């Protein structure tokens, strides 16, 4: 019991990202409304961002901006003092990608609404079936 609690506590970020991913996937697959699906998609993407940031986290370290002063800027930098910057870099890119995808998805949703007058997938499907 102790070990399981420990396991849960030690990796709770990872459990969270999995549950967020599941929420996102559920919304994308089970929801009928297109905007809901898009929200689900974004939640899925942010879950992965959460995962990456969790990789980068380091106990007892500080943000990855090197302390320096003009006079003596060349003392050795110890990596252990700073949080891993690479996942942050990657996730900046991923956030940008997600907002770009969001923009395109919403644009498509608006187009569909203009054409079908609804955002519910089943209603659109019905219309398609009636007038192919």
């Amino acid at each position: 019991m102790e070990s399981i609690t420990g396991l849960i506590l030690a990796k709770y970020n990872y459990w969270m990202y999995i549950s967020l991913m599941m929420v996102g996937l559920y919304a994308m697959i089970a929801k009928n409304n297109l905007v809901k699906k898009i929200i689900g998609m974004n939640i899925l993407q942010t879950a992965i961002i959460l995962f990456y940031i969790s990789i980068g986290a380091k106990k007892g370290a500080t943000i990855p901006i090197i302390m320096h002063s003009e006079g003596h800027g060349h003392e050795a930098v110890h990596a252990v003092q700073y949080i891993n910057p690479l996942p942050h870099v990657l996730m900046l890119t991923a956030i940008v990608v997600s907002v770009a995808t969001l923009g395109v998805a919403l644009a498509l949703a608006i187009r569909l609404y203009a054409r079908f007058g609804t955002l519910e997938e089943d209603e659109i499907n019905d219309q398609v079936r009636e007038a192919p």
Partner: protein
Amino acid sequence: MNQYPAFLIIAPLLAACLIASAAWLRRSLCFPIAVLGLGTSFLSSLGVAARVLTDGHFQYRMGGWAPPLGIALEVDYLNAPVLVAVSGAALVSLIATRQIIEREQGPKAPVFYTLMLLAVTGMLGMTATGDAFNLYVLLEISSITGYALTASGDRLAPLASLRYLLLGTIGASFYLLGVGLLYMMTGTLNMADLSHLLPALYGSDAIFAAFLLILCGIWLKAALFPLHAWLPGAYSHASHASACLLAPLMTKVMIYVMLRVMFTVFTPAYVFEQISLEGFVVTLASVAVVAGSLMALAQRNLRRMAVYIVVAEVGYMVGGAWLGNQTAWTGAILHLLNDVLMTLCLFLAIAALAGRMETTDFKNLKGLFSTMPFSMGALVLGAMSIIGVPPACGFFSKWFLLKGAIEAGRFDFLAALLFSSLINVVLFFRLFECALYSGDDHHGPGEHGHIEIHEAPLSLVASLWAAAAGILAVGFYSGSIVNNFIKPALM
């Protein structure tokens, strides 16, 4: 210093930006800039391939940083021919579809060119890069532009495109998650570096999960049955111009990525010895081939038929890659190159036909051999290649695939391939039967009846024949391609 790899990828990007700016100033400049960009890219890819032939594998360090710190383009025997095929096919399809774009898009044509170029940039970048995360970014570029391109089409195109977007994003997210797992376990994103670090971790569940996630993501994007749900809608409702660009390239580049992941990131030693998925995947591929063929058979429209042929072809390549012997890998890689040409030829021909009639339903195709002999001639060559008739290139890759299947003892895959070839014969000859006969049933207009030839625009027909000639040329020289590129790549 050899800057070809940089030009290869940057040229279409720069051209895309220039077009987007020029669109507001002088519209007539857009098309020449686009051709220039892709032309430069194509020439650079030839340069890259030539260098690979003489020097073998080489690296281009972006920003001058050595990997794994920086990002490097890695060009080797495997991706050099893919680069040539992708940039060449993109150039051909751009030139071919100009009229279609100008007619359908009107004032938005420059935007369309820009999107096309960006999509090609993404695909070329994916092919050339040596960094797993960079691949994701480029994948997203080609996907986002791909969504926009597929959305321009008939009434249902936006719906198909939104579905494509949702599924595509799931695929890309899976890939990203897989790469994240790999990074967590190894601390690097560089493919070559990963392959050095991974053997120590082969027993790990996390690595296995990463492999599965990456594979699932790629398969979603490559439309391997049963993950193909987005493809038929997206490619059959999209504008012909976008279908001509995306259908030949997108799935093929994803198959290339799969090969890269299997061979470079995870070595065959891991894929085939540590985990034993090949039995399952080859079965899946066989099912994909059969299902794709059968669904193609059920269609009454040329375009939808072609779309399902693409699904079946993905099964060919995935199966070949997973059969797990040299011959089958050779077949898969060769088929990748051939399929770019075959699909290009097929979709260009469809675009040419569709330009002259309302739909590509079979019943509308009557008498086409008389009215559009050149387009149909090229379509026949493409069909021969897809069926697998020598000297068209499709035969030779099928040869290796079949041989690989026999070597691996996978007779189900062998049977699936043969079955699909047979179905392809039926598919295309059903089509030719329609197209051969003019509307009236018996003894047509006789020797003296005059039939007006009503061909597609010259640029389209010329490009179509360029693709058809490519099919023959690759067929005749497939031995050299195998000897000079594919064999060293598999060493």
